[in-house]
């Protein structure tokens, strides 16, 4: 299951020369095609050979990818119209599963929890990335060390992060409560407190993922032409003004991308919940995907689980399209 998707290639491999050439120039074809290619039968044979060759290159990957995504996606839709536990005979129920979602209190609670996490995580991760990128975008001593320290948590898995979270935020002996005690603040329940658990998960998500927004902002900052900044400074803008009026507008596309991307990530939160709270305490961290996983693989409601998955897909699409349209409109005003 690839948890990963590409993004617009802002940073292409350096060595790539940016000269996209047409796939085969006319001269190329005439060189390969011998004089005999003028004969229609030879031409047809050549076309057949080209098709076979082309499909030979792409087919192995294509079959695997479509077989493990397009085919299951269609199958999931058919499943969502059934009631099935994987063993007994499936019962066709039409759109009942979708209708049931509207009155499912646990699902609505999961929706709220997911929304809370998204509202906590997305703005903080984008702003933190922006701040860290600005801070790291300079040549000072130890800058390599700072970058490494901030970027290396990116390789931490959800499993490792989960164990670290339970350790650092342990109400009994965790480092966090120890530090609070040092400042005279009473110990907190953290993951065991329904009001704090989602905040803890957000903090640790930021720890592991700040590198991503930072890196894309860093790349964007370095793409801003130096004369633009120079011009603003000569016109008498102070650094703060230069940032908000010159630099920040240049970063708008990255901000839109990062926001959409982080929203999609946030809506799909599962791993870190599983490795820390398993949805608790009192269901306070049960997200949509956690609920989906539980419905499908614990309660064995394959049909209902598939319907929830399609609901999630629809919500993700709507949000992505919404953010894109909104940013197009507002940026037209802004520039």
């Amino acid at each position, binding site marked *: *299951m*690839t*948890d*990963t*998707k*590409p*993004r617009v290639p*802002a940073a292409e491999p350096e060595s790539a020369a940016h000269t996209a050439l047409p*796939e085969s120039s006319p001269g190329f074809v005439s060189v390969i095609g011998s004089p005999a290619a003028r004969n229609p039968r030879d031409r047809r044979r050549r076309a057949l050979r080209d098709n*076979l*060759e*082309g*499909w030979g*290159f*792409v087919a*192995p*990957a294509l079959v*695997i*990818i*479509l077989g*493990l*995504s*397009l*085919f299951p*996606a269609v*199958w999931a839709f058919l*499943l969502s119209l059934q009631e099935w536990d994987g063993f007994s005979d499936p019962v066709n129920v039409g759109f009942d599963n979708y209708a049931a979602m509207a009155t499912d209190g646990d699902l609505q609670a999961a929706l709220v929890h997911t929304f809370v996490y998204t509202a906590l995580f997305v703005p903080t991760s984008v702003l933190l990335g922006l701040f860290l990128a600005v*801070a790291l*975008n300079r040549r*000072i*001593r130890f800058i390599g060390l*700072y970058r490494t*320290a901030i970027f*290396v*948590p*990116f*390789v931490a*898995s959800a*499993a*490792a992060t*989960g164990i670290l979270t339970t350790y650092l935020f342990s109400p009994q*002996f965790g480092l966090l409560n*120890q530090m609070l*005690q040092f400042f005279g603040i009473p110990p907190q329940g953290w993951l065991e407190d329904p009001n704090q658990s989602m905040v803890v998960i957000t903090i640790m998500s930021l720890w592991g993922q700040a590198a*991503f927004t930072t890196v*894309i902002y860093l790349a964007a900052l370095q793409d801003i032409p130096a004369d633009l900044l120079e011009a603003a400074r000569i016109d008498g803008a102070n*650094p703060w003004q230069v*940032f908000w009026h010159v630099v920040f507008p240049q970063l708008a596309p990255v901000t839109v991308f990062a926001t959409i*991307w982080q929203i999609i*990530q946030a809506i*799909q939160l*599962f*791993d870190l919940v*599983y490795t820390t709270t398993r949805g608790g305490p009192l269901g306070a961290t049960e997200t949509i995907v956690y609920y989906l*996983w539980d419905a499908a693989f614990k309660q064995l409601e*394959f049909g209902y689980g*598939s319907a929830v*998955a399609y609901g999630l*897909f629809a919500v993700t*699409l709507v949000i992505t399209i919404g953010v894109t349209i909104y940013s197009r409109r507002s940026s037209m005003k802004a520039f």
Partner: protein
Amino acid sequence: MTTLEAAPRSRPVRRRPSGWHLVLAPIAIVFAIPFVQMFLTSVTPAKDINKFPRDFFPSALTLDGYEKLFQTSDILLWLGNTTIVSAIAIVSHIVLCSLAGYGFARLTFRGRTFGFLAIVGTIMIPTQLLMIPTYILFSRIGLIDSLGAAIVPWLASAFGIFLMRQFFISLPAELEEAALIDGCTRLQVFFRIILPLAKPAIATLAIFTLLGSWNDLVWPLIAINNDQAFTLQLGITNFQGPRRTEWSLLMAGNVVATLPLIVFFLFAQKQFIATMSFSGLKG
């Protein structure tokens, strides 16, 4: 806030230390704390761990946690399993995605545009939608509870094809034309001329695949219940129930699962950052 652009390359005058150190040093320390605690706790004697307030540095160093980890769990087996999954995933990604990326970038054949759009379209499909049918499919073909279940979804990815196609499109075509005139076949051209030029893109692809396949949790969690076929991430996650108080053992497990990637990151930081900026990676 002083200046925003990267400071001028070489300024002969030595300037006073930047005020940004006061911002960056504390942040760097905060970011480092979880891994530092992980390493320290893995070598801390049990008697130090259960006292409160605990000292940041252990009173003595011990490998008890590691010893217990290796003796009482199958961690080495899981490490082997994960290594197999990631190795196959990387090799398969490099071969299949490069071939397909090259095909879509350079060859003319009927259905090319349609095929590429179909691949790119699958990027929109969230993995959660695929879990249930893939689980059913894998149980029908007998892959569930075996390492194969963890391997197959990582053989190729739409992202990989997209990445490689972008790269191959940017290569000048003259290189291949000359070789084709000299009588090389397409496959020869691909392996002898194109692939060696694609090293930067292949590095990105390999790191992307390594991170994703090494750290994957949700799919192995669903597809593998047999602890002989556990991946490393699944294994250390399952520690948490029965052994949730044996912190030095837990952290030793964490070190085994994370250290390979940390070391890799330190050696190939530039490539990791290139990969990060190309993809969202984490789920």
